[in-house]
């Protein structure tokens, strides 16, 4: 452990937890050296994975569903479109304060649960809960963004296709899965890539809640934590390389999609 790391209370805390974890495993240093990884890194990887899963299985499909319904021009669709999109327009700094109002000890959710300050649920401080807090906050922006992108794609789908499917007796779900989804292939790829990039970018979200001394070790924040200030440690650079390797795949996929029409 570099000397600089000890100065940061959050890192020390993470290390303590790791030691506890290793103690419980009863394996100690052996396992760590054997895998060339520490338990903390594994836990980080698991959290990053959970975050990606949440984005792919819940947040993005929800955005697509909203776009699909709003596209049918139900009453008030313009209002709904704006309502879902507003969080994307706000700065993350503002988003952090807004959610703090919801989740702080004397905030709305604790009020709703009927807890006063002394026995409030600590949404930001509890390690088991704060990953879900990040998920909710990130989705608040992500869903509106996906909705708007998908909506633009849906506008380009020929309505005659859907009509024809309905006449052939296809249900709503079949129409979507077999007619609309395949014609939207370019948009779908873009959405998948954006989802990947967003889940890697959760840094900003963590930062607005915790500041530099992050409780939640998302890769992005580890990079920041280990390089902030001029005495940059090489550990930060190493995390940056991991982040780079993870980011470059989706970026290449995205660019290939974008430039395919462009080159031809």
């Amino acid at each position, binding site marked *: 452990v570099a000397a600089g790391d000890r100065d940061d209370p959050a890192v020390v805390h993470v290390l303590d937890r790791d030691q506890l974890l290793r103690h419980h495993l009863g394996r100690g240093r052996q396992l760590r050296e054997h895998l060339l990884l520490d338990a903390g890194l594994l836990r980080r990887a698991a959290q990053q994975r959970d975050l990606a899963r949440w984005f792919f299985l819940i947040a993005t499909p929800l955005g697509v569903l909203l776009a699909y*319904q709003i596209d049918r021009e*139900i*009453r*008030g669709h313009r*209002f*709904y479109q704006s*309502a*879902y999109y*507003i969080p994307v*327009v*706000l*700065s*993350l*700094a*503002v988003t*952090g*304060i*807004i959610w*703090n*109002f*919801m989740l*702080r000890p*004397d*905030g*709305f959710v604790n*009020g709703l649960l009927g807890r006063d300050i002394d026995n409030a649920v600590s949404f930001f401080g509890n390690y088991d809960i704060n990953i879900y807090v990040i998920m909710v906050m990130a989705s*608040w922006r992500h869903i*509106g963004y996906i909705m708007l*992108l998908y909506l*633009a794609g849906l506008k380009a789908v020929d309505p005659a296709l859907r*009509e024809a499917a*309905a*006449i052939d007796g296809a249900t709503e779900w079949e129409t979507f899965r077999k007619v609309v989804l395949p014609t939207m292939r370019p948009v779908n790829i*873009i959405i998948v890539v*954006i989802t990947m*990039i967003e889940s*890697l*970018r959760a*840094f*900003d979200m963590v*930062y*607005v809640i915790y*500041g530099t001394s992050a409780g939640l070790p998302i890769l*992005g924040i580890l*990079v*920041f934590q280990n*390089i902030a200030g*001029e005495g*940059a440690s090489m550990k*930060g650079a190493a995390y*940056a390389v991991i*982040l780079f390797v993870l*980011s470059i795949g989706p*970026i290449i996929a*995205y*660019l290939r999609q*974008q*430039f395919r029409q*462009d*080159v031809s």
Partner: protein
Amino acid sequence: MTATIARRYRGRQRVKDRFISIFICIFALVWIFPIVWTLWSSLRPYKEIRANGVFSVPESIGFGNYSTAIERMDLPTYLWNSLIITAPAVFLTLLFGSVTAFVVSRYSFRWNVSMLLLFTAGNLLPPQLVFIPVFKAYLTVGDWLGNRRLFYDSQWGVVLIHVAFQMGFATFVLSSYMKTIPKEISEAAKVDGASVFRHYWNVMLPLLRPPLASLAVLMTTWIYNDFFWALVLMSNDSKRPITSALGRLQGEFVTDYNLLAAGAMIAALPTLIVFFILRRQFISGLTLGATKG
């Protein structure tokens, strides 16, 4: 025959639609609730909430928090900082972006596509990743030129990094728009003996007005909203834009949280105004380049 089936299909659909719109309506209300709640809280003194609880009936409602916030948090200075960073950054991004797009799409040369690719790829990388090299480069270049603070801790350094980051997207959007403009216009200009600059300034630029407007709206929001670069590339808090300053204020005014809500609402106001007035440009800009990471 077909018409009857279609009509029956629409009839069934109408019933379903009603349920769906109710669901979407409730969901939308949940969506904007956090903002509404913060707005509501910002109108009440924190003391009252401390004393009577979160759901207490308000005894006094007013803009007291707002005037206090403007005064004590020095918000006009920070808003001014935001302006002098955002305005030049948007202007330069559009200028450089349109010039590059013009050359890339109107004069063919060998590295057209690879250059566009490089620009766009750089734009998508997480900023924390690029931060180390940028930070070191700013200090080193500053040392070479004899002034360490030339780029680091200066408004121009932040403008520069925003231009670098956003230019790829602007170039990409503008060049794909230019491809839809008939080549004949350019050929006519060349036949008439227009110089390259005249061709760009008097022929192409007027035609680019719609995408430039959309991009200007988008870029303004993105650059205004960013807090990362100003935070890491500036050490002097009084130079920072309002979004970066909010982070520090959050720590400082932790004892009067409703005051902070007022500050946050003031910081959000410019982007909300831009969004509601120029909603059409905003959305078309976003879908023009299909997306942005």
